[in-house]
Structures are given as structure tokens and as C-alpha cells.
């Protein structure tokens, strides 16, 4: 299968290792990966902050870049949630019937990374090994928008040597929420404090998730407190097993 990687804007700039890991995992499974350099962003930051009109050209750009793609894989559940929950509405708001139709035609071929492995390819064991204690942070969008359920957990359970540490209050938001972290910095920090305490209580060395946005938030505090806990995107764990170090 020819898979087009939408890396997302913040992974491109801040977490290139996640992109490399996605490429590695999918190629190891025998698929061809392409990267369309014209790609930019899904428009989530603008849309969720209320810059609705400004988000439309970004959405249009995304659709134009991937319109002909066979399958699009995205290592970020919140970006996929942006597409599934809001793209049609945005196109309708703009009064662009063609964009509505194009979005509806494209979206069934867009997958979040872990969702693609399990639901798209039917793979749970990708052959990885990662001899560490790991806890899984379930991001809000992965749970409540994409309904990933235990998909990431199933993938983690098949990783050799990995000891999965359950976390308390898994359903609670880490407090990132995009610009919420800045506009409501105090409340966001209070939410983060609870989440970090739960992460630390697991005794894990590494906290993973399917969204680097949450992990950037969590690691911001884990590092500020000079804890030993690292963060790593699920793709980076699934890509390990050939001797290289992985981690934030």
C-alpha cells in the first residue's frame, strides 16, 4: 500500500523523530511511504482558538495536497479529530460545496497512526522491543473523538520487554488544550499538576501517547521538575528494537 504521511506542523518542526519512526514502522511492515512537501498544517490551532475564517484556506490547502492520495496517515489524534469533527462544518461555513464534497471524499482515507495499524492493516505486533516501564496517556481526542479505545494499549502489549504501568484517572485531560495552556495558564497548570502526579505514581520511566502535543505539555512539567521520566510518541516505541535509543 502506498501511504502518504501527513507529519503535522508541530511534529515537523519540533518532533521530527516521530515522523522518522512512523516511516520506519510502516516500511518495516512492507509499505511504501511518500511525503508530500507541500503539506503544512491541519488548521486546528486557528479553528479551536476561534479564528474560523482563517482556518478555511489551511483546510483547503490540506485537501488540495492529499486529494489524490491513496491513504493518509497522521501521527496525531487531535489533528485527525480536527478533520473529522470540523472540516465539513468549516467548508459549509465557507459556502464551498465543492470543498464539502472533496472533504467527504478524502476523510475516509485519513487515519491516525495507531488506528491505521490496528484497524487499517490489522496489525498489533509490529516486531518492536522496548525494555522499559511505560505508562500510556490517553489523549482526549484519541478517546472521545477517534474512539481508539484500547488500540494503543494492544500495540504496546505486543512490544517485547515493555512493562505497561496503568495510570490513575486515565480519562482526565492533561490541561494542554492548545492555546488554552496560554490563555488559561493557571488552570492548565493545575490540571497538568494532577496528571504529572499520576504519571509519577505509576513508576514508569517513559510516558507515551499518540499525540506529541500532550507529551510536550507533560514533558514541559516533568523536565521543569527535573524528574527522570521521559516522553516518547507511540510510534517511537513501536520503531525501536534495533538497538537505537529512543526517548524525548
Amino acid at each position, binding site marked *: 500500500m502506498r501511504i502518504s504521511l501527513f507529519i503535522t506542523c508541530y511534529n515537523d518542526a519540533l518532533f521530527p523523530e516521530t515522523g522518522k519512526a512512523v516511516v520506519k514502522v510502516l516500511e518495516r511492515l512492507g509499505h511504501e511511504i511518500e511525503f508530500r512537501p507541500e503539506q503544512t498544517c491541519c488548521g486546528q490551532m486557528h479553528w479551536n482558538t476561534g479564528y474560523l475564517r482563517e482556518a478555511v484556506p489551511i483546510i483547503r490547502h490540506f485537501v488540495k495536497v492529499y486529494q489524490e492520495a491513496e491513504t493518509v496517515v497522521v501521527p496525531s489524534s487531535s489533528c485527525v479529530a480536527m478533520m473529522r469533527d470540523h472540516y465539513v462544518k468549516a467548508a459549509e461555513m465557507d459556502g464551498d460545496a465543492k470543498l464539502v464534497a472533496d472533504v467527504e471524499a478524502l476523510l475516509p482515507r485519513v487515519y491516525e497512526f495507531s488506528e491505521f495499524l490496528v484497524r487499517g492493516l490489522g496489525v498489533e505486533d509490529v516486531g518492536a522491543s522496548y525494555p522499559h516501564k511505560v505508562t500510556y496517556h490517553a489523549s482526549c481526542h484519541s478517546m472521545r473523538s477517534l474512539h481508539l479505545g484500547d488500540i494503543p494499549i494492544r500495540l504496546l502489549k505486543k512490544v517485547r520487554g515493555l512493562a505497561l504501568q496503568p495510570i490513575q484517572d486515565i480519562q482526565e485531560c492533561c490541561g494542554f488544550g492548545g492555546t488554552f495552556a496560554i490563555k*488559561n495558564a493557571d488552570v492548565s497548570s493545575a490540571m497538568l499538576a494532577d496528571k504529572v502526579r499520576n504519571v509519577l505514581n505509576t513508576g514508569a520511566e517513559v510516558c507515551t501517547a499518540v499525540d506529541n502535543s500532550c507529551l510536550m505539555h507533560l514533558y514541559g512539567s516533568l523536565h521543569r521538575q527535573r524528574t527522570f521520566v521521559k516522553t516518547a510518541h507511540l510510534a517511537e516505541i513501536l520503531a525501536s528494537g534495533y538497538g537505537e535509543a529512543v526517548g524525548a
Partner: protein
Amino acid sequence: MSEVEVREIAWNTRDFPEAAKDLLENSQTRRNVRHATNVIQGKRNKVAAELPDWEDLREAGSEVRAHALRHLDYYLTQFEEKCTKAGGHVHWASDAAEANRIILELVQKHEAKEVIKIKTMTSEEVGLNAHLEKNGVRPIETDLAELIIQLGKDRPSHFVAPALHVNRQQVRAMFQREMNLPDLGEEPEDLATAARNYLREKFLRVKVAVSGGNFLIADTGGLCILESEGNGRMCLTLPDVLISIVGIEKVIPSFRDLEIFLQTVPRSATGERMNPYNSVWTGVHPGDGPKEFHVVLLDNGRSPILADKEASQTLKCVRCAACLNACPVYHQTGGHAYESVYAGPIGAILTPQLNSMEQGRSLPYASSLCGACYEVCPVKINIPEVLIHLRGKVVREDQATLGGKLSLWNIGMQAAAFLFKDSDRLAMAERVGRVGQKVFVSKNGFIEALPLMLSGWTQTRDLKAMPVQSFREWWAKERGAAKKDSHD
């Protein structure tokens, strides 16, 4: 009216972040809120999971409420007709002032100096208690939590459990002081007994009662109230005169629809399978209950919400407060940070709309959009979607002013939108960012302090510096040349 009226729903003009900052300092309140929401949420999850058709019930509840709102004129007219036929009096109030005037006139007509009240957020919304007091009528709250709020000169922080932010030691201290009971114990039984003794003679003596209503039933002209303490049943049956103030959106088409809501609302609101007291009454009946019954149907900013296609689902709300108990923001701050009668996620969308976006403009941003509210809502209000819609309104209104156009937020967002339209611009910005960040990056490779609004991030969080190579640069270097023409 030439100017937009700012209603009394929001208590003052403090923005959410500012009010929340103060509340976060109050460790006692935060512990109380955390404990109470954990208990209710735990019970709610358990009893919701017991019903195999829970999701179908949510869907059905949503459909019924949406249908009633689409045909609101029809069902309200039907309600008025049936209620009048059953001996009730229906009054229409376009705003808070009109509702207060109608109710005061009714109280004065009966020469009452006191009224007993069942907990009603709609009366909080119009500021009824203050209006009655100003005119020499003493309102007496009979719901235990509302009594605690009233005696403590406090404000409700939750619309099912208004005193959720107070613990029982605090209640005891206040009862000791206000009821002159120096030896009162702190067991729930002690406190309930004190409240019962305080209230009982008032139930027997006071001739006029004021209530809200959970549902207006169009096909019978009846009203429905769900409650836990029995104070409501007393207020609905003992006085000579009953006045109910209810928002126009609370109508449901038929008595049979209660089949849905009597399953979902108690489970969502208090984690009970059924409320201890479920009262439905229709008009008046000689020799049984009040001799005179009035219902005041309140608009107070609801009609314009109905006209907004994106936001009208707000009015499906049945005020169960499940979204408050599920909300991680509410868990931290409690209800007072919203500075509104309606707190939590539903308050964050309802308050600014009832105030025509004049007040509560920071409330749509008081959410991480985590979706926990939508997940528990028994009538499936997509609160995150409405929050975003209202953020859109705030941004558009801000952009219409020079100050808003020149704000750092707007300039930053316009710049980002410009970059995201073209990958060459974005790649260039990434390169510029890597150089520009150097002034902020510490020796350990992390950014520990940022200026202006970005300081909100670094007040509690570090930020790893941008790596030297972006993914797109890595791809171009490692893979690009070989596959460049593969998809153009």
C-alpha cells in the same frame, strides 16, 4: 430598547482566568469541589453503565429536546392552552425585569410578606430574591443547599448542588451562628435535623411558594420537578398559591417523553436511578394542593439563541450538571470562577449567549475542549462545538475593532495563517525560528522563560528547543531526491 441589555446572569465583569487564579488559591474550596465531584461522577458512571440502552436514551432525549425547540411556538401555545384549561394562569416574561414584576405583583396581591422557595436557577438568573427583598418580601430557600447559600450570604457554585463548594464543618459553623445552635454536631443527621426544624414551621405557615420547573409538558399543560429532599413536594402542596418560573426552552411535547428523562436525568444529575421525589402537577384541584397556580414563562435572551443555527442546541439543556461534574476545569476551580449563575461547561456557552456576548466573553475559552462534557450530556449537547462557535464570534467582534486588529493574538494568528498557506513559507519560518529561539534557549537545551503571552507556558513548563533539522528537511535530504517526482 436601543441598547443591548446586559442581564444579571453574570455577577461581574472579571474574566475567567483572573477569577480562576484567585480560586486556585483557595485550597479548602478546591478540596471540597474535588471530593464532591468525584463522588457524584463515580455514582453517575456506575448507574449510567447499568442501562444497556443508555446511548439510545441519550439519543432519544436529544431528539425530543431538539424537536421541541424546532417547534417551540407550537408547544408553548399548546402548553398555555392546556394549563389554562386546567385552571392555571400563564404569564409571559420577555426579560428578568418583567418576570420579577409579575411575581412581585402576585405576591403583593395576596399580601404575603414571605415566600418559600424550591431551588430554582431561573429565579437566580433573574435576581428574584434581591427584587423581593427590596420590596419588603422575604424569600426563604427550602432546599438544604440553597438554604446554606442563603444563610451564608454565598453564591451557588453548581446548579444541582449549589453548596458543593462548602463542606459539612463549614455548614455546621454557619448553622451554629445563623440558627443560634451552639451545640450543633457535624454529622449529616445533625445538620439535616437543624434544617428540618428551621424549615418545618415555615412550610406550615407561609402561604405563597415559588418554584422553577424541570419540564413543561405541552400535551397536558403540566409541570414536572425532580428533587431529593421533599422540600419541593411541601412547597408544591402546602401553600395556597404556587408561582413557577420556567425558561421557555423547558417544554417537552408529551407526558410520555418523561419516560426518557426520568431515566437519564436523575442518573446524570445525582447518580441516582430515580429521584426520591418526582412531582408532576397540572393546574389546580379543589381541596387538593394550591388554590391558585401561576407559571411565568421566561425568555430573557433565549429567543436569539434559538435563532443561531450553530448554537441553538445549547437550549436542549435540562440542567442536570453532569457536565460540571465531568469537567477537568471545573474540578480545579469550582463554579465561582465562572462568575455566573450557570457554571461549568454549559455555563461557559449559556452565559455569554444569554448576555448577547456582552458579558462572559472569556467563558468560551474556559475549556481545554477535552470533550468530557459532551460525553456525559444526557441530551447530547456538543458543548465543544458550541464553545468553538462562540470563540469564533468573540474573534470576529474583536477583529471589528482597531485594538482587536492590532492585538498580539490577532497578529500572531494572521501571521501563522499566512505561513500555513504555503509550505515554502512554513519551511522558511522554521529556519528563522531555529535561529531566533537561540536568545531563549538555556544551556540544557530547553526554553525556560518566554516573553509576553507565551510566558503563560513557561510559568510552569519548560519547552524543548526546536531540533536542528525538521522532518521535511530530513526527508528531502534522505529520501527526497529519489522520490521527488513520484506524486507531482
